[in-house]
């Protein structure tokens, strides 16, 4: 599903959250949106399936203007769009499976079919063992994986991710990132991902969008943006990325050393 945003504006009372955002994401592309806290990322992404009503501008999803949709059209759209929340937003009183199939069942999918699809989605995120647990019995990472499964079960043509790892501790972040890596690596729908995970973003993104104070300040392929940042924000992200790469090579050297010594040990064992 192609997404195009033109001149999007949104304010909350005195706060201007979006101040004329233009954005294009082609069918099947992965767009990563980054920016400092409060710059309007969540607002932008929520405007796309109208969890937030924009004030001005156009939002074309699959060629249709979301803002002009009737309630029924909107519901139909939302069923084709998966949304992953920062805080997982699981329904506390429902089991893992029920959470995943809630939308399907209520939109008319037969319960058995929905359960099959739900179970499949949960399997994909590695949660097949926990179908009948309740959210409060799961760790944060597990909950977020259920959140992802819920979006996947919709068989979405567009996936919207609003900082899926932001409220997780580093180990859980890993878990979730692995799932995301997996999803982005294989065939996938169009994705808009808001995240602060710079390495993941740069690796996964087809298109990098930097948002600052309600405006897009950089947009383009990550390599290009990182190579020639045009904005202060862009430069800061480049610095972050380079520091990360340096760190990564240190880790790699240490990792290789560990592998060599491990091999040596194995060989010595085999020898004796």
């Amino acid at each position, binding site marked *: 599903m192609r997404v195009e945003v033109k001149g999007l504006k949104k304010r*909350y*009372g*005195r*706060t201007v959250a979006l101040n004329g955002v233009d954005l294009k994401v082609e069918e099947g592309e992965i767009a990563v949106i980054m920016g400092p806290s409060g710059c309007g990322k969540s607002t932008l992404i929520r405007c796309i*399936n109208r*969890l*937030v*009503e924009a004030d001005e501008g156009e939002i074309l999803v699959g060629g249709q203007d979301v803002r002009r949709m009737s*309630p029924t059209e909107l*519901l*139909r*759209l*939302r*069923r084709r*769009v998966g*949304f992953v*929340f920062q*805080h997982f*937003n*699981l*329904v*506390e*009183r*429902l089991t893992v499976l*029920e*959470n995943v199939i*809630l*939308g*399907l*069942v*209520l*939109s008319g999918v037969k319960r058995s079919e929905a359960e099959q699809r739900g179970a499949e989605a949960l399997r994909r995120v590695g949660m097949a063992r926990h179908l009948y647990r309740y959210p409060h019995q799961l760790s944060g990472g597990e909950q977020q994986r259920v959140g992802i499964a*819920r979006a996947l079960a*919709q068989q979405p043509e567009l996936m919207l991710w609003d900082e899926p790892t932001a409220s997780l501790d580093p180990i859980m972040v890993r878990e979730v990132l692995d799932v995301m890596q997996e999803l982005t690596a294989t065939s996938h729908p169009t994705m808009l991902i808001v995240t602060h995970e710079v390495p993941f973003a740069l690796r996964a993104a087809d298109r990098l969008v930097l948002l600052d104070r309600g405006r897009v300040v950089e947009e383009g392929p990550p390599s290009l943006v990182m190579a020639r940042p045009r904005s202060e924000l862009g430069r800061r992200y480049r610095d972050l990325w380079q520091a990360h790469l340096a760190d990564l090579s240190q880790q790699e050297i240490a990792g290789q050393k560990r592998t060599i010594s491990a091999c040596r040990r194995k060989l010595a064992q085999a020898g004796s």
Partner: protein
Amino acid sequence: MGIPWGDGLLLFRDGFRRDVAVAVLLTILLGIAVAAGVAWATDAYFGETVTGLLGEAGEYDLIVQVREEAKGAARAEMGRVLRQLPGAKVKEGLAIAGKVNFFVALPAELRTRRVFESIGTYFNGLPGYAGYTFIIEPSLTVRGVPAGAQPLLLPQIEDLPGVDFAFRHGESITAVLKDAGATSSVNASLRRLLRRYQVVEVRLPLGYQTEDLPALSERIVNRLRDQFHPRTAVDITGGEGGDDFQAFVSTLAEVRRFLEGYASRVTVRLQGWEPLRPGDEVVAQGSSSVPPVVGERVRSDHLRVRIQAVEGQTARGLVVEGDPAPYLQSGAGLDQAALTAYRVVKGDEIGPQVGLIRVENERWRIIRNLEESLRMVEQLHGLAAEARGASEEVLAALEAYDRTREELRQAQEVLQQVNAGLEGPLAQIRQSDVDRLVAELNRVSTSIGSLISQVEGVGAAPAPGQSELSSVLNRLNPVVQILAGFRKQIDLFVVELQGFSRLSRSTGVVRELLGQMEQAAGSTLEAMQGVDTATLRLQLTSVLERLEALEQLDVAALKAQLEEIKAALPDLRDEEIGRSVRLIDQYIGGETLPGQSLSLLLDRDLEPAALKAAIGREVKSDRVSLFALPVGSVEPDVRGTVLHLLNSVRGTIAGLVALVFTFLVLLLDHSTVISALRRLSERRCRGANRRWWQWRPDASWLYGPLAGAAIFTGVYLGSGGRLPLLPAWGAVPVGLALGLLTSLLAERVSPVRDEQILAGEAVGLTYAQVMREIVIPAGRPGILQWLNRRRQKFK
């Protein structure tokens, strides 16, 4: 910006509106059932208690109360009383507030007016008897019917359809009904009957004097008949005497009269140019050393007088400030300046001259008289002694008088003897005879002399006994005059006699002389005999006794007595009296003294103003006051009253249950909806990004009050709730208020997180589905949740 609560109202799309409506409706029905049920249960419980207290309906006719301590004796006596009422039953009930209640049931043949009207005479002999109460059922009682109106109303009440008979007790008429079903119709017709009349109390103005109250009221009634042609115009002035208040007012009036009797009465002789009106104040010098000066302030020691009445050129008033003593003591002795009175203007400024002042004081006069009496008493003692002396002198004079008379008689005898001795031609007068005669006559002369000096010495007698003494002396005096003349004759005769005896001794001359002398002595003696000395003496002794008694009087005690009287006179200062009188006047104002009021039974439709005018003309005063009262008010029998009371208790309980129920339902059910509404509204803008004046009530502030009003009004009215001070329409604002309160508390009672709503929205749920599947099930258990379960896909 759009409607501020537009976002919230999204929630009511897709059928959720219907869910809520059904829930509210069901809530109302359930609430009615609960409130009415609880109320009914209480009602039933209390109803049973009433039956326990009063017996079954119509079982007993009256309750006779007896003081608890006399219970045993009363119980024994009750048997004897009941023998006079054959067929009557008695049951001893509970003791309440120190009184034992005996329930008495009379047999049908004794349930008559005659028995009921005299029922007290049967029971008032019971030991510890403390009254009785009728509990005849079914009955209706008209209370507060003046005795005079009762004979007129009683037959009319008995004629009402449904009334068996009626009887009077105290100020009430009780109508005994044929059956309980007639109660409301008889009640209505009784009210209609009473509405035809009014009791008009006419209070005559204070101080109004009437020769004959009944005659006056007859005149008034006649005038009203002539003027208004009413169906009813009857004088029902009762002989019951004044009530407590009237007694109080009359006491006050009495005190006022008493005080005024002791107050200094000030009269101002007006000098014509400055008119005074009652209520005005004037001022004079009083005991001050400074006379009033026009234009200056009134000094506190000036004499300040409040005018009460003005007649012609004389104004009368009472002292309100200052001391009137100077005017009382020296009266006319004061100079013009001190006597001049000035008007008080502007509160306390001395205005123009108005006239001359004079002050009289009854108390002061009494005291002066008492002081005079005291002085008299002190003198009395001395006077009595003096009077006694005088009386004793007069008594002595009387004795001298008697003595003189005796001597005179003896002298006359001697004269006769001598004279007789000279009978015959050659009779020679003997020297011895002459000597004897002379001695005798000298004695008489001396006697008369001392008598005269004594009588003259009595002199002026003092007051006590004066009249008696002088009457004695007056009787004596003429005789004493004669005696004085006689004495002179004697003296002359003696001189001559002595001369003759020595010189000529001519018998003829002597004889002649002797004859003359004898004659004079005879007439003198006669004169002396004319005074009844015995009676005079008696008179004098009685005077003496009286004076003696007077002397023995305990003067000190008498003095003390008089002093005491003087001290006992109220020592009220004029200012105090003036102030008190003014206060009393303010208080009793237009109040009429007891006895000076009439009660008339009149048609209801006569206008009080017209009546007042007509009566005022008859009484010749416009200060008549009128009070129109109803003839009485209808009350149901005791059970009816209690049941009526219970009914209102029932209403109150239903109302309270409705209140609690509504609040509970609002908190449990609707606070969830309210919280959800608030979340949706907050999406548009939340918290700090808004200034306080930008705050708009969102849909939650509308929903809560609406739900509250709908539920409370429905339950309250539906269950027949009736809270004191709350009219039926009042349910709406109370419901609104409850809803508003719920709106305030909602998020604390049933928090709803936006994340939960978003979760549903993001996967394409309608708002109704979000509410049904996510919000309501997570909320508090209640009717909404219970109803929701059948719509819920995920149980």
